[in-house]
């Protein structure tokens, strides 16, 4: 018989062995895993830096290190978490691993470019991290690099900024690759409206990556030129305009929050129908709301600048648009909840994390509205209220969605199951720890606790102490989760452990090198639960 033996993508069959076989592989599944491993290392470093800050904040006054050290830590914590963890985030890991599977393709459109993006990612991250060890000490500008301070400070801003530039380039190339892949490589019969919703969200994300990142790229280059050559774009003493920097920065960095959250929403949209065993409610609304978010999200950037000097007209227009962009997000939440209604729900770990996502994302989103409205923002601007808000969105939202996706596709990735009970326990720690860590910061923020401060007045002590305790409960959760997933091999996973309907569940776990023996032909909608 002329049957070909199909190897799992985890086996090395090529020229190289061991780690080299991975580092030279253009297989989208391996590249996805390589992103994941790198990202986890960065994430753990970032988390430990976060805990270091929480320790310092346990009591008012100086505990362990100086204010300047604190400035350095929150800056690199922000840079690591934003540029190396959540911006590539779910798109780089699960987008790479799953998107070709979900659309019935053998790989992405440009596999070698895909590997190149990964190397750029590693290079960019290495350059950004080198800022800690080279030059005149760690940068202390915050991850936003606001001018004119980023021009004036003697710390090693250039390395951090250049690292972010390279990371942006990597992000652009991934976006480009995904757009072409989704246009060109969908399985026969898979029209756009028969495409699963995770690829839909990746498609919207990819357009933002491609269209917004160049702006921050050039802005970062301008900062470098300004530091080296005194070029004067943003430095008022040479006639430049620091507010212009803020505009250029946020023109990218607001859409960037959608680069982070859209794939997260996409993952949740895959998980909920599977565990409710129901068709997704409002398929088209969810698909199109991703595009709507991408589009409107472009025009809201100045809500970060209500207090930095803008005409009153500009302010209310941006406020109005900010409220508008909340609508498509809310549409998704309603659709998820409605999908669960009357479903036959089985509460397995991925579903639990997805529920956690919805809850935390809602708190983050609703508090975001109070930051989007002019009057209330003036009160809480630059307080720990903001810190709590964005951690609820990017950690509670993106982070929990990442964990959900990991628990959902883990059996497909490794062909193994994990221990459900321990996963649930980890979720418990994570959820409780998370809320204890960040909820008090809303409260002390309203009371007036500024952000980026290493010291505080005595009345904020209780809030900070609860927060620090929460931080360590959270850390325990992370450890339990990672140990459960990666310490020992679980039992062999079936091809379709959750009863999912999308294409990745029709192939073996772990998938063979070329994914599909024969490319599938699509004749109907992606979620056809009875």
């Amino acid at each position, binding site marked *: 018989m002329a049957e070909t033996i199909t190897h799992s993508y985890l086996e090395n069959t090529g020229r190289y062995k061991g780690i080299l076989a991975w580092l030279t592989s*253009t297989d989208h599944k391996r590249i996805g895993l390589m992103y994941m491993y790198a990202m986890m290392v960065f994430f753990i470093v970032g988390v430990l830096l976060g805990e270091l800050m929480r320790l310092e904040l346990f009591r008012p006054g100086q505990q362990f290190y100086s204010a300047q050290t604190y400035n350095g830590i929150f800056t690199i914590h922000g840079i690591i978490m934003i540029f190396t963890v959540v911006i590539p985030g779910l798109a780089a890991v699960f987008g790479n691993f799953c998107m070709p599977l979900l659309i019935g393709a*053998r*790989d992405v*459109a*440009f*596999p070698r470019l895909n590997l190149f993006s990964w190397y750029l990612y590693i290079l960019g991250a290495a350059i950004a991290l080198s800022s800690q060890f080279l030059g005149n000490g760690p940068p202390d500008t915050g991850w936003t690099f606001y001018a004119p301070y980023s021009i004036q400070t003697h710390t090693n801003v250039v390395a951090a900024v250049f690292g972010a530039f390279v990371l942006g380039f990597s992000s*652009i190339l991934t976006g*480009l*690759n995904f*757009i*072409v892949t989704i*246009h*060109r*490589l969908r399985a026969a019969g898979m029209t756009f409206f028969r495409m699963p919703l995770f690829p839909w969200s990746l498609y919207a994300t990819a357009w933002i990556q*491609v*269209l917004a*990142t*160049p*702006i921050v*790229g*050039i*802005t970062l*280059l*301008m900062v470098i*030129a300004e530091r*080296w*050559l*005194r*070029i*004067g*774009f943003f430095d008022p003493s*040479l*006639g*430049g*305009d620091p507010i*212009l920097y803020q505009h*250029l920065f946020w023109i990218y960095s607001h859409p960037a929050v959608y680069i982070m959250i859209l794939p997260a929403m996409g993952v949740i949209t895959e998980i909920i129908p599977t565990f409710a065993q129901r068709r997704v409610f409002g398929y088209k609304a969810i698909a199109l709301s991703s595009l709507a978010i991408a589009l409107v999200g472009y025009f809201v950037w100045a809500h970060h600048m209500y207090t930095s000097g803008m005409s009153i007209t500009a302010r209310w227009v941006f406020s109005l648009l900010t409220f508008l962009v909340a609508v498509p997000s809310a549409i998704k939440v309603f659709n998820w909840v409605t999908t669960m209604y009357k479903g036959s729900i089985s509460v397995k770990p991925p579903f639990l994390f997805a529920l956690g996502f919805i809850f935390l994302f809602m708190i983050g989103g609703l508090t975001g509205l109070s930051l989007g409205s002019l009057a209330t923002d003036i009160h809480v601007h630059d307080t720990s209220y903001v810190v709590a808000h964005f951690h609820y969105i990017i950690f509670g939202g993106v982070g929990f969605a990442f964990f959900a996706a990991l628990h959902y596709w883990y059996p497909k990735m490794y062909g193994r199951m994990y221990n459900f009970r321990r996963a649930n326990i980890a979720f418990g720690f994570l959820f409780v720890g998370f809320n204890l860590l960040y909820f008090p910061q809303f409260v002390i923020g309203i009371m007036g606790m500024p952000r980026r401060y290493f010291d505080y007045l005595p009345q904020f002590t209780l809030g900070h102490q609860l927060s620090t305790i929460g931080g360590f409960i959270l850390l325990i959760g992370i450890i339990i989760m990672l140990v459960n997933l990666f310490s020992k091999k679980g039992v062999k996973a079936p091809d379709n452990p959750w009863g999912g309907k999308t294409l990745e569940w029709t192939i073996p776990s772990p998938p063979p*090198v*070329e994914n599909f023996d024969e490319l599938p032909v699509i004749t109907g909608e992606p979620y056809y639960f009875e």
Partner: protein
Amino acid sequence: MEMNRDDEGAKLGMWIFIFTEILLFGGLFLVYAVMRNRYSDEFHQAAHQLNAFIGTVNTVVLLLSSATVAMSITAVRKGEKRKGVLFILITLLCAGVFLINKYFEWGHKLSIGLYPGSEMMVGLKHGYILFFSLYFFMTGLHVLHLIAGSIILTIIMVRIQIGSINAGNNVLLENGGLYWHLVDLIWIFLFPLLYLIT
């Protein structure tokens, strides 16, 4: 792994990449617009300092080079390999002329101490500083793109010569040509903004 060639996909990818390049320069054009609006008189006067003659020559040279790239594509499609190589060679020569002109233009400015961060520059009025900063930054970034484009075209030329780009398989040449048109296009915007609006 089975490798299906997808020329349409490759071209789509290139177009998207070109979009990102335009946006990259778009950020600079935005800064230019803001600063020109703020210091319009000083921008006006500073622009007199640029050598419009060299600028014009470079514009003509780049337009010519865009034409020869296009002709090379036509030639390769028809299977005329030697012509294809020749036209790319002319394109590269044009790029060389452009760079030599730029060398003299910048060299002159550097020799009289007119460059970002120089003592003379820092003493000028704000509008002048910004004009010349933008001038150096924008033309500098453009030159980097020109050099990158030349390297790509050199590789393509070799590939035509050895026959791996041919009448049936020339998407790489087409994409290289697209990139070269982009380099040209950006210059077409830079030229009036910096040299002509005086």
